[in-house]
C-alpha cells in the first residue's frame, strides 16, 4: 500500500513535470510578445528589450523552462540591478500585467472558487444522489420517468444561459437577491449566502442532473446483482438489502466521478464565476487570457491540472478502502 502510494506520487510528479513542459511549449507560441505587452503607449525597442530581459524571455526556451521549474521548487528572482523582484518557492511566475506573483493571485482567487465549488458540490451530491436512488427504486414508474426527463433537460441547458436567466429574473427584474458581490463567509455570512446562492444553484443544476442518472443507473446495476438476491434469500428486509448491500456497492463508482468533478471545479468555474462576478480562479483565468497574461495562464493551468491529478490519486486510494477487491500494487 505505502509502496503503491510512493510509486503513485513519483509518477504524479513526473506527470506534472511533463505537464509543465507541454503547457510551456504550448504557450511559448502565443501571438503577442509578452515583453511588448508590458509596456504601454510610448514603447521603444529598448524598453521592450529591457522587459524581455527582466522576464527572462531573451533566454533560450529550455533555459526558460528550467528557470520556471526551478522557480516552483526553490523560487527565483526576476529583473536585474536595482530592480529585482524575488519570488519565493513555490513560484509559478510573476505577472507584470498585475504586478503580483502568480501564486499570490491564485491564492487570492482560491477562497471564492473554493466556496463556490464546495457549496455546489454539497448541493448536487445531496440532490443528485438521493433523487437518483429514488428514481432507481421507482424504476419504470412515472416518478422515474419524470426524474429522468428533468435531469435530461437539466444537463442540456447551457450553464451560462441558466446563469443569465437567473441573473435577469431573480436579481435584475424581481430584485429578490442583491447584486452579487463576494464577501468571505467569515466577514458577513448573510451577504455571503445571498451572493453564492445563485452561483451554487447554476452549477448544481448541471451536475445534479448528471448525478441523478449516474446514481440511478449504478443502483439499478447493483440491485440486479446476484448477491442482492442472496441477501433477500437470507430473509433480510428490503430496507436493509438496499441500505447495506445496495447502496455501498452502488455508490462506489459515484465516489470517483464526484472526486474528479470537485477537483475540476476547484480549478475555477469560468462561466459561473464570470457571470456572477465572483473573484475566483475562473474569472482570473478569463482575464489572464484577455490580457494575454502568460505567467498567470500557465500558473492557473498547472494548478488546475494538479488538482485533477491529485484527485485521481485520492480517488484511487479511497476506492481501495471501499472495495476490498481493489488491491493497490
Amino acid at each position, binding site marked *: 500500500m505505502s509502496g503503491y502510494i510512493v510509486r503513485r506520487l513519483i509518477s504524479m510528479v513526473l506527470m506534472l513535470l511533463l505537464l509543465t513542459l507541454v503547457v510551456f511549449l504550448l504557450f511559448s507560441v502565443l*501571438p*503577442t*510578445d509578452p515583453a*511588448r*505587452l*508590458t*509596456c*504601454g*503607449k*510610448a*514603447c*521603444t*525597442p*529598448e*524598453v521592450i528589450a*529591457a*522587459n524581455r530581459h*527582466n522576464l527572462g524571455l531573451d533566454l533560450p526556451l529550455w533555459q526558460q523552462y528550467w528557470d520556471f521549474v526551478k522557480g516552483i521548487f526553490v523560487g527565483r528572482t526576476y529583473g536585474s*540591478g*536595482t*530592480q529585482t*523582484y524575488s519570488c519565493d518557492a513555490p513560484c509559478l511566475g510573476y505577472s*507584470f*500585467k*498585475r*504586478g*503580483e506573483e502568480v501564486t499570490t*493571485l491564485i491564492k*487570492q*482567487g482560491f477562497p*471564492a472558487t473554493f466556496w463556490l465549488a464546495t457549496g455546489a458540490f454539497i448541493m448536487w451530491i445531496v440532490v443528485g444522489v438521493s433523487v437518483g436512488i429514488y428514481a432507481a427504486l421507482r424504476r419504470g414508474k412515472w416518478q422515474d420517468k419524470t426524474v429522468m426527463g428533468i435531469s435530461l433537460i437539466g444537463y442540456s441547458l447551457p450553464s451560462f444561459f441558466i446563469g443569465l436567466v437567473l441573473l435577469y429574473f431573480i*436579481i*435584475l427584474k424581481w*430584485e429578490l437577491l442583491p*447584486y452579487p*458581490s*463576494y*464577501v468571505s463567509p467569515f466577514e458577513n455570512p448573510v451577504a455571503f449566502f445571498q451572493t453564492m446562492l445563485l452561483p451554487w444553484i447554476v452549477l448544481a443544476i448541471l451536475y445534479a442532473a448528471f448525478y441523478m442518472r449516474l446514481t440511478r443507473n449504478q443502483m439499478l446495476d447493483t440491485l440486479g446483482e446476484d448477491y442482492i438476491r442472496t441477501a433477500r434469500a437470507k430473509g433480510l428486509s428490503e430496507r436493509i438489502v438496499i441500505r447495506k448491500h445496495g447502496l455501498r456497492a452502488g455508490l462506489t463508482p459515484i465516489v470517483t466521478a464526484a472526486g474528479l468533478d470537485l477537483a475540476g471545479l476547484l480549478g475555477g468555474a469560468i462561466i459561473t*464565476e464570470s457571470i456572477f*462576478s*465572483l*473573484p*475566483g480562479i475562473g*474569472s*482570473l483565468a478569463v*482575464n489572464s*487570457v*484577455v*490580457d*494575454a*497574461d502568460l505567467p498567470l495562464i500557465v500558473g492557473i493551468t498547472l494548478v488546475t491540472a494538479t488538482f485533477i491529478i491529485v484527485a485521481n490519486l485520492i480517488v484511487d486510494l479511497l476506492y481501495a478502502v471501499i472495495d476490498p477487491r481493489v488491491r493497490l500494487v
Partner: protein
Amino acid sequence: MGKARPGVLAAVVVAAGALTLTACGGGGSSSSSTGSAGGTPTKGGKITYLEIGEQFNNVDPQRVYTGEDLAFFSGTIFRTLTAYKFSKDAKEGTSIVPDLATDTGTVSDGGKTWTFTIRDGATFETGAAITCADVKYGVSRTFATDIITNGPQYAVSMLDIAKNADGTSAYAGPYKKTGQDLFDKAVTCSADGKTIVFHLNKPVPDFNYATTLSAFAPVPQAADTGEKYDDKPVSSGPYKISVYKKGKGGQFILVRNDKWTQDSDPYRHAYPDSWEVDFGLDPAVIDQRLISGAAADQTAISTLLTPASLPIVFNDPKFADRRTNEFDPYTRYIAVNQKKVPDLKTRQAIAVALDREALRTNAGGAFAGDYADGAIKPNIGVDYAPTGMWDGLLGKTIPATGDPDYAKQLLAGKTPTITFDYPNTPTNAKAAAIIVASEAKAGITVKPNPIEAGQYYGVVFDPAKAHELINAGWGADWPNASTVIPELFTPSGGFNLSQADDKAFNDASAAAKVELDRAKQATMWQDLNKKASEQVFIIPTRFGRDQRLPGAKIGNAYLWPAYGSWPYGDMYVKS
C-alpha cells in the same frame, strides 16, 4: 476606471484630454447637467465608485495616463505643480490654476526655461514636507521606461537631455542612474528646495499644462519601491490609500490624510470623508443600480452608461436633473495603415464607402457622438477648423451612409482585400459587420480581425502585426493640438497607428510645435489636420459623447471639461 465599456473600446489606453465645449456644445448637453449643481456643499459622507475593471491600470503617479484616473488621483492623492480649475464651464474648466506651486509658473529663455515655486506647508501623508527634490525625483522616474510604463513621456521628449542614436533618452532613470548628471542639469532645485526649474530642449509655450499631469507629481525617493510603488504610492493630497484589493469584488478605499491641511491646498475641497472604488462589476449591473437608485447607491457614481441604459435614462424625466450628456475627450476613428495601403485613391475609396451612419447608430446614435471630420475635436478650441473631409475634400460630398459608386470610381476597377483590427467585444463585432457590409458595396473585401481587448494595443502597435484598418480613439492631453497631430501622425508620436511618415508633414508638425504665436500655431494645426484627412491617415467616425448617471445624493456631479470626467476634488455628498 479607464477600463473599456462595451462600445467605448478606445478608453482602454487612450489618454484623456482637456476640452472646451464652446465650439459645439449642442445636444442639450449643458442644460442636462445643470441639475446637479446648486445647493451648498457639505463635508462628510462616502462616495462609492462602481467600476467594471478589476483594478486600476496604474496608481503610480508617473504611470497614470487615462482621463478618469488622472482626474480621480489628482483630485484626491496626488498634488501637481499646476491643476485645472474646477468648473463645468468649458473655458474655466480647462484653465489652469496653481496647486503645489504658488503660481502657474514663469517662463523665460523664449519658452525654454520654466520656473515654479513650491507652496509652504505642503506635506506627504508621512508628514514630511514636499520639497523640490521630491518633485524632481518624481519627474526622473518617467525616464525609467522599463519599469515606469504606460505613463506620458512629455518629460522625456521636452526636457533638455541628449538622445541616444535610437532616439531614446541618454538618461535611464533613477534606478539605472546612467546619465543622471544630464538629468540633474535639466531639472534644478534652489538651495532652499523651494524653487524648481525645468530646462527644455525647445520652446514649449504651454509647458505648465503638461505639469498638471500626475507624471509631474512629487515622489519621496526613500519610499520609491519601483514596480511595487504602483500598489501603494505615497499621498500628497487630502486622502490616503487605506485599502487596495485588486480583482473581482476588490476595493480601493481612500480615507482622510490627517497630515493634509486646507490652507496648504486652496485648490481641493475634499468634501467627502472617504472614497470607495468597487472593482469588477458588470456594466449592466452598474447601470441597473444607478437607475433603480437603492439607498446605498444614491451616493454612488460610475462613468459611461451602456447603450442599453441610454433609452431608459434619457426617456424618463425623473432622471432629467441627474443625467449628463457631454462630449467626451475622444475622437473615434479608424486608422489607415499607410505602410499597408500606400495608394491614396484606395485609402480615399475605403473612407468614401464606409457607412458612418450605421456605425454611429450601432454605437448609440446621437448619444455616441457627432460625425467627425478629422483628428482634432472641435471642443479643443482655436486649433479646430472644419476640414471639409466629407464636403468635397475627397472630391465630392460624401453622405454619412457612404457612397459606394464614387468609391468604385476611385478604385478604378481595383478590388482590394483588407483586414480590420478591433478589440473583441460584441458591439465591435457588429461594427465590424457594418464595415464589411458597406465596404463590400464598393468591391472592397474586409476581413474582421478581433483581438482580445487586453492585448489590443500590444498587437496593433507592433508594425509586424498591425493590419490595414485599426480601430482607435484619441483625445488631446490639453487644449493644444500639439498633443494630437504629432502624437498621431508623426513617427516620433506615441500613437502613430497610421504608420504615417510624410517628410513634409513631419517638418510642418515640428514647426507648429515650437511656434510661439498661438494664433499662427492654431492655423498650422488646422492645415495639418486637413492634410491628414485628405491623405486619409485616419477615417474619423465620431466626435465621442459621454452619458453618465450619478447617484441622486451626489453634489457637483457635472462633467469636468478638463478631463471629460467627474470633478473629484469638487464633489460632495448631499445631506
